[in-house]
């Protein structure tokens, strides 16, 4: 009888070990998350595997470690999608550029990836896209954000507890699943990142449908659940503290930091306005400006500049086609601008220039006038775009009803 059990056990061990070994080998060969250096080619361009998009936080943490950029772009999906690799490389020819932006990120994550990058890379310039929702203190980091993966802890000390992503990337159901999808060609090759962290292209969306979908998410959840506050969920911190830490670290390491408030579409500002968050939005801008000024003094350095691309311009008031077949030139939805616009704003930031009502550099002298101007522009926009304003109102009414 014991012999039966012995044979059963031997089979169990051999079969399990074989399956695990084959799975591991297969995942290493396919490298579905692009962490073992396998580069895929698409239309003659080096790209990451499609699985990289699904494990963006891991992929970009490792990408920064491997590529050690001198120029880094950070921020949310707006910054992740909104810049073209080629134009950015042209601006910084000869330097290693990486786009470390993460979708649905908050300012804490931006800080943590900035710290990670500073610890691992010879950073010279960093461009950070600022978004109002990132400062909502109750929005927690996504599940796949892992502190231990980053080179330093939040106090900027080397993190002793490093996550070994080998198990997740070689011996996991996710890795096997994506390896099979990549190997069989079943994965989505349209939604991929280049090996320098930039999005390959941005021709998605740009119709009323994509606008409504995006606005609904902001109205139903991002801005409202829970109620918007700058206090963190443990009530111990203020999200501006993380912003302050970014500035302090940059001053300390003499890294050139450029902030810009993302140029979302005017309908996005209408969402903020109709949700009753306008005062907080203005406070957010004022407070960030104050902090950049305050933090420059101890280091006897110039304050980092904030370019404000939010507001009402010929770009942000681009007509939203109500016919689904038509596509917009500057926007994918009311949150995300396209690379055509991203390239323009990058030029303004690098050259310290602006257009009227677009990309103004905030200062203590102009902040009141600037905010007043945006308020006035909003009134004008509401009169001239009644249908768009009504769309937003309807979405908010539906939310309030249920």
């Amino acid at each position, binding site marked *: 009888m014991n012999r039966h059990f*012995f044979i059963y056990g031997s089979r*169990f061990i051999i079969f399990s070990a074989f399956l695990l070994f084959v799975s591991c080998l297969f995942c290493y060969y396919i490298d579905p998350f692009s962490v073992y250096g396998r580069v895929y080619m698409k239309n003659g361009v080096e790209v990451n595997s499609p699985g990289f998009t699904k494990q963006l936080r891991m992929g970009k943490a490792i990408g920064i470690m491997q590529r050690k950029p001198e120029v880094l772009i950070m921020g949310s999906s707006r910054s992740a999608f909104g810049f073209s690799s080629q134009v950015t490389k042209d601006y910084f020819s000869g330097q290693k550029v990486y786009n470390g932006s993460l979708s649905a990120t908050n300012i804490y994550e931006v800080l943590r990836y900035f710290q990670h990058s500073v610890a691992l890379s010879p950073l010279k310039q960093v461009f950070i896209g600022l978004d109002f929702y990132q400062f909502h203190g109750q929005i927690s980091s996504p599940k796949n954000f892992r502190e231990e993966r980053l080179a330093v802890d939040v106090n900027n000390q080397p993190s002793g507890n490093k996550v070994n992503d080998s198990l*997740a990337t070689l011996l996991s159901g996710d890795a*096997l699943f994506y390896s099979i999808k990549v190997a069989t060609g079943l994965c989505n090759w349209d939604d991929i990142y280049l090996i320098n962290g930039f999005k390959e292209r941005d021709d998605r969306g740009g119709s009323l449908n994509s606008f409504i979908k995006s606005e609904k998410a902001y109205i139903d959840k991002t801005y409202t*659940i829970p109620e918007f506050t700058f206090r963190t969920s443990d009530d111990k911190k203020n999200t501006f503290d993380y912003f302050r830490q970014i500035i302090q670290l940059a001053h300390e390491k003499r890294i050139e930091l450029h902030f810009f408030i993302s140029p979302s579409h005017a309908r996005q500002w209408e969402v903020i306005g109709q949700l009753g968050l306008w005062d907080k939005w203005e406070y957010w801008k004022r407070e960030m400006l104050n902090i950049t000024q305050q933090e420059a003094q101890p280091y006897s350095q110039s304050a980092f500049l904030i370019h404000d691309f939010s507001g009402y311009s010929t770009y942000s008031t681009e007509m939203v086609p109500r016919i689904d077949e038509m596509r917009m030139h500057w926007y994918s939805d009311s949150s995300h601008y396209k690379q055509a616009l991203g390239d323009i704003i990058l030029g303004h930031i690098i050259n310290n220039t602006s257009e009227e009502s677009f990309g103004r550099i905030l200062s203590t002298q102009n902040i009141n006038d600037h905010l007043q101007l945006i308020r006035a522009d909003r009134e004008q926009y509401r009169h001239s775009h009644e249908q768009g304003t009504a769309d937003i109102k309807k979405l908010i009414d539906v939310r309030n009803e249920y």
Partner: protein
Amino acid sequence: MLFNSYEFIFVFLPIVLFGFYAIGSKSHHRTAIAWLVGASLFFYGWWNPAYLSIMLISMLFNYAVGTVLSGKDKSKLLLISSIVINLGALAYYKYFNFFIDNLNSLASTNFNVEKIFLPLAISFFTFQQIAYLVDTYRGETREYNFLSYCLFVTFFPQLIAGPIVHHREMLPQFAKDSLYKLSYRHLIIGLTIFTLGFFKKAVLADGTSDYVSSTFTLAETSAQITFFAAWAGSFCYALQLYFDFSGYSDMAIGLARMFGIILPMNFNSPYKSLSITAFWRSWHMTLSRFLRDYLYIPLGGNRKGKTRQLINLMLTMVLGGLWHGAGWNFALWGFLHGAFLVLHNIWIRLAQHWHLKLNILFAWWLTFSVVLFAWVPFRAETLDGTFNLWRGMLGINGFFLPKWMAKYASNSGSWFSEHHIAFVGIFHQLGPVKFIDILWFVVLAFIIFYMPNTQQFMQRYRPVFELSKMYKVDISKISWRPTLAWSFMISFLFVYATLSLTRISEFLYFQF
């Protein structure tokens, strides 16, 4: 260290098994026990070494008291004092913050107490030792050596979340010589039970967590959860909790069996129950047994009249609820189950008197529905969240119906909106629900309602004590045997579960 972690499965467990049998096979039985105690303390200390001292002090204290109580001078005062000290420690670590918070809000006082961290498994090892003390006082225990006692308390398979074992079941097993000799039979039976539990925990339970958290997170906001979303959320949680906890119990039972130790049954397909009483005989059975033997019966059980019996039932369940955690939600959960049990008790009497009988399907539906209803406070963070979901379950928050039904309602639009009915998709509030996810839940429901449970699959090989309590089904043709087909199937489940380990989440029962 989690059972469902690489370090436990591929490092800790093989080393401990090897050490135990290497030492035991050379007839160094006491050393083998010491090895297991050492390994168990290491396992416990892995989370937080500071907790170790609390457990060690508790163990030394209770063994010393037990030794005195087993002598000629059986002092009732000593027994009562030692129980008070045990419960005092439990109350301090588990309930003190809760008590102070409530005192502050009721009496408008402002006592500021630091957050006291709950030592892991304190409820489990405290209860096991109280039972030991009571039985020692009653003269129902033999004289056990300290090392065996330590293993009884710390044995790592059941230390963290049960099954709550009884000294009568455990200590005699440590004394058997056969235990220390490697038995492929025990090893393989244990490995198979462990793998079934591992699969339940890592694949089946964790696969439901997204839907559960989205519903219960939403419940804590101002959003009004509608009828179908509320029931779906509670249903998903019922599945998650069952697979999580019964999976954990299977893993514990399997691990113990690898060392030749048989543990008591903890789950017996509870969602197949046809009454709430039957549910409690098959859900967390070792806790029910403990509450019955050391709370309900000492309170008088059913010996002091019908009314007193119902009061005892209610009291036992409320305290049982609070055992799970310091919070009004747990008390409410216990109260609800107490009330259901009382009602069922009354129903039985009426049914006997009037010769009434419920339709089986209706009895099952009613039992499962009230269990789902009661899971809400168990999972919700706050009472507000609980009431929000309950309002949803009762239809007060309205109904979302499939979009395609809108065309049938176009003429009565205002009536529908007045009655909080909208055609936006029944699970609209839970975000996009994919067909594959619905299919997944159907499979899970099939497993829970129709498939045999682990003990039934393993019934030929005495997987647990008290097999007689198991639902009787004839599955002799598909029950487990050490065959080629089963070895491949169990290997496949093991590999599947191992590959699912990247989404490590802690056992839900750890907080208790």
